[in-house]
């Protein structure tokens, strides 16, 4: 909930926008408290990752494939869900502060100009947890509840 609030622009210069802001706030509140809870997205890493938290900037660099190694020199391995997966959309917007189409543009530019690689796409959240757990340097995300001894949830500041 905190994160969702953070992602809403704080400058409101038009009444229409304020209306939209309130609507979104209300919707977020309803969703957060309703039975079909869209829980806060969680950024997960393999237990070998050195840090306990990450800035939003670092998270963006990771998922735009511009941070090749962790502080302990282990290569960063990025896992993502398909572009149209609801968890991918939520994570991209609320944690990274980007729109899914922007991520796709950044990846495509790198893949098709030879200046970078694409993240590894997995089909389900379960597969995401498995892959991050078994890949040193692995990073990914889930909707909630990554219960695996080799996976750690990282706070995004």
């Amino acid at each position, binding site marked *: 909930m905190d994160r969702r609030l953070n992602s809403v622009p704080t400058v409101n210069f038009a009444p229409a926008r304020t209306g939209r802001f309130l609507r979104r706030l209300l919707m977020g509140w309803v969703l957060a408290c309703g039975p079909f809870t869209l829980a806060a997205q969680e950024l997960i890493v393999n237990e070998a990752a050195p840090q306990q938290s990450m800035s939003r900037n670092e998270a963006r*660099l990771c998922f735009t494939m*511009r941070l090749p190694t962790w502080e302990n020199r282990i290569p960063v391995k990025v896992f993502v869900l398909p*572009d149209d997966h609801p968890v991918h959309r939520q994570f991209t917007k609320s944690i990274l502060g980007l729109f899914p189409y922007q991520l796709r543009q950044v990846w495509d530019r790198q*893949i098709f*100009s*030879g200046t*970078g690689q694409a993240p590894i796409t997995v089909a389900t959240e379960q597969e995401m947890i498995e892959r991050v757990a078994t890949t040193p340097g692995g990073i990914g995300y889930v909707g909630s509840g990554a219960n695996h001894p080799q996976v750690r949830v990282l706070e995004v500041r």
Partner: protein
Amino acid sequence: MHRLAITLPLILCSLNAYSEESFWDNLQVHGFASQAVIKTSDNRFFGDSPDTSFDFTEIGINASLPVNPQILLAGQLLARRAGDMYDGTPTLDYGLADMTFASSAEQRWGVRLGRIKNSLGIYNETRDVPFTRPGIFLPQVIYYDKVRNLMLSTDGLMFYGESYHDDRGTLSLTLGGGQSVIDDNVAWAFLGNDFGGELEPDGVAGLFRFWYTTPEERLQLGVSGALVSMQFEPGQYSPLSAGTTDLFFWIVSFQYGAEDWTLTAEYAGEPIKWRDYQSPFSPDRDVTAESYYLQGAYRLRPDLQLLLRYEEGYADRNDRDGVQSSAMTGGAIPPFNSFSKIWTAGLRWDIDQHWMVRAEYQRHQGTFILSSKENPDPGQPQADWNLWAVQAVFRF
């Protein structure tokens, strides 16, 4: 024998364990294929379009392999059929080693070596990758298809540096040089014919790109450019002498992306110098070409996008209506050959992660963007013409 029976599985196991960590696992292969159908009311564009053309096909396959986290090897083969301009012969689109010297959450810098796509404007680096383009055709007044190779890629060296900041955003700079890749479309575009000789790169072409992006990548502002010199090597019967053509192509770029819409605008200037051809076909002269476009994309749904664009391009900014340059040729080349004003409307549907289809309509005034190789008779083209196109794209 016993020992072998024990050690062999062990060796295989350890090989297997090694291969799980080996760099071949990080090999990535991607590709795409597209086919378009084009119909124009008049004038030939990507083939025999007045009679419906199927001559626009793009097939690409690339591979990338990190040797270690600091070095990435990458290459792409491209087969592109584009009317009379390109016949689909596979070429090396890029082939490079990207070496990162330093990277952190604050900055990254390094060098690229090999055949490198020129990072000009917003679209040039991936201009032949259909789903990275806003429409079937890029704005032709800036991303000319009649003379794409000159701006396409460079065999050389490119330094890059990026600085990341939580609040201020990303600044990036690319500087480099090398030899431009030139083909005979360039001679047709800059000399109006191939004149029985070869137009070749003369010395080193220089490239730069300076780019700013806000932290959440909503706003992008950039300036980029290329400085290219070419020398004409006359053949035995060539009417031209060994002249030179120098040009400086620069683009100012703007893009703002919201959740549902993206607004893009670019302005390009191109001073061109022709020297020493000693021919009435190509006297010594200095001309500055100028072009710009404004483009809006609206996402009705994440998989459905509307496109609207207006663009203008002029062969000579001091002769926008083309009257002077037409007079220079005694009226042989009509005035409307010196400008293009184009409205584009399009619809794109991303069916799934592999397939995309789209349709486009363009209303043209002027024929500046047409290839003289496809329209060799300067008296033939029509000033006002329409274009309809559909394209199917596959990617993996």
